[in-house]
């Protein structure tokens, strides 16, 4: 037992690396927020563009969405960070991780929003248009408020799953929680920083998971 504590919960080591982990915590939060904002917003824009049903455009959107839903996030990050510089496009690990996760979240969010828009009964469109509302007005005033309500629970779950992917930034030297924890581990030859990192993730994501659960009950659909 003493050995276990000494190895995984070594106070000295933890105290030494706690400031670094805290730094990593801030980076993770920043990265996660930026991913959520960019991913959800572009997903919504894509779904709205798709609703105009311009054939060529929709083919592009569907292709984008299918590719990004199929590709593992780590592969995308590595391509952006290691492969693109060979053609002269350079970006920091932070930007590469942000771009990759945002694009993937956008793809999933687009599908979720699109399903939400389709789930609103046709009669809602007809009622709105029959009173003289334009397509855009009907969409923004009648369809979207209902679609968003349907989409919030699945979107929250998907968003949580993808923002956890910020840990992949460790592979391209983004100083987020996992990177700091691993660095601490390799300098101290003691895994306690990793324990601390895991705790930091729990502190960050358990409230988010609870929030997701609350959202699911709060927005349970009733007619």
């Amino acid at each position, binding site marked *: 037992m003493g050995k276990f504590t000494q190895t995984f919960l070594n106070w000295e080591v933890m105290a030494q690396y706690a400031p670094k982990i805290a730094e990593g915590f801030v980076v993770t939060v920043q990265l996660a927020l930026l991913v959520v904002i960019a991913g959800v917003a572009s997903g919504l824009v894509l779904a709205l563009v798709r609703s105009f049903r311009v054939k060529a455009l929709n083919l592009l959107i569907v292709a984008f969405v299918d590719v990004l839903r199929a590709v593992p996030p780590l592969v995308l990050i590595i391509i952006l960070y290691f492969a693109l510089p060979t053609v002269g496009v350079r970006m920091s690990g932070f930007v590469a991780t942000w771009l990759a996760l945002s694009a993937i979240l956008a793809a999933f969010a687009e599908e979720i929003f699109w399903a939400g828009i389709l789930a609103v009964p046709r009669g809602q469109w*007809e009622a709105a248009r029959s009173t*003289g509302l334009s397509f855009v007005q009907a969409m923004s005033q009648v369809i979207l408020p209902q679609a968003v309500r349907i989409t919030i629970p699945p979107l929250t779950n998907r968003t949580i799953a993808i923002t956890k992917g910020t840990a992949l930034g460790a592979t391209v030297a983004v100083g987020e929680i996992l990177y700091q924890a691993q660095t601490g581990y390799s300098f101290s030859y003691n895994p306690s920083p990793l324990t601390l990192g895991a705790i930091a993730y729990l502190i960050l994501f358990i409230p988010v998971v609870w929030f997701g659960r609350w959202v699911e009950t709060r927005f349970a659909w009733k007619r």
Partner: protein
Amino acid sequence: MILDVAGLHKSFGDLEVLKGIDLKVAERELVFVIGPSGSGKSTLLRCCNRLEEPTSGSIRVEGIDIMAPGVDINAVRRRIGMVFQSFNLYPHLNALGNVTLALRKVLKQGKSEADDIGMRALARVGLSEKAKAYPNELSGGQQQRVAIARALALEPSIMLFDEPTSALDPELVGGVLAVMRQMRESGMTMVVVSHEMRFARGAADRVVFMDHGRILEEGPPEKIFNEPEHARIKEFIASLNG
């Protein structure tokens, strides 16, 4: 003529649903459209505000050719009230919000002006006290009356009713018909697709019988209900009486 439909054809793919409809509706007239299911009644109504795009033919509303290229269809639509079988109230807005949405967004009225007009429309359907209620807190009959108020608030020149009572429990039908009767008395021009024959006998100026995408016969209710020229109509009416 408020509504003038001429030579209206509508096909869905290979299926020709309307095969040349001519129908004129004068101001203050109540025209009842009856006929077996699949005869094209609803499609006819839905073509009149281009919820369905007609395949050919002409439709004039208050003299305006609504099929003309460049016609402002949104402006035309707000002159044509439409009431649906399934009410189609907006579930995220309360009764007053349902009634005032188009006033604010289409007619660009301010909130207080729209609310005034909305409250008056709700009063006309006897639901002033339900202004703050959401659709899921209203009975089917009340929802349909709110839907009527939503259309009325825009002061349309004609109202189209697409089976307004067929989704209602029998005991709720009376309230909706009472509102329609009162609209009729206040001089609203109405086209009603419905199977409420008692209402038709009492309120309609003219009954149009549709069959297989054509108007088979039209005339005053007594004529169509009591001594139609076509045996087909007699059969249909007998079948409704069970």
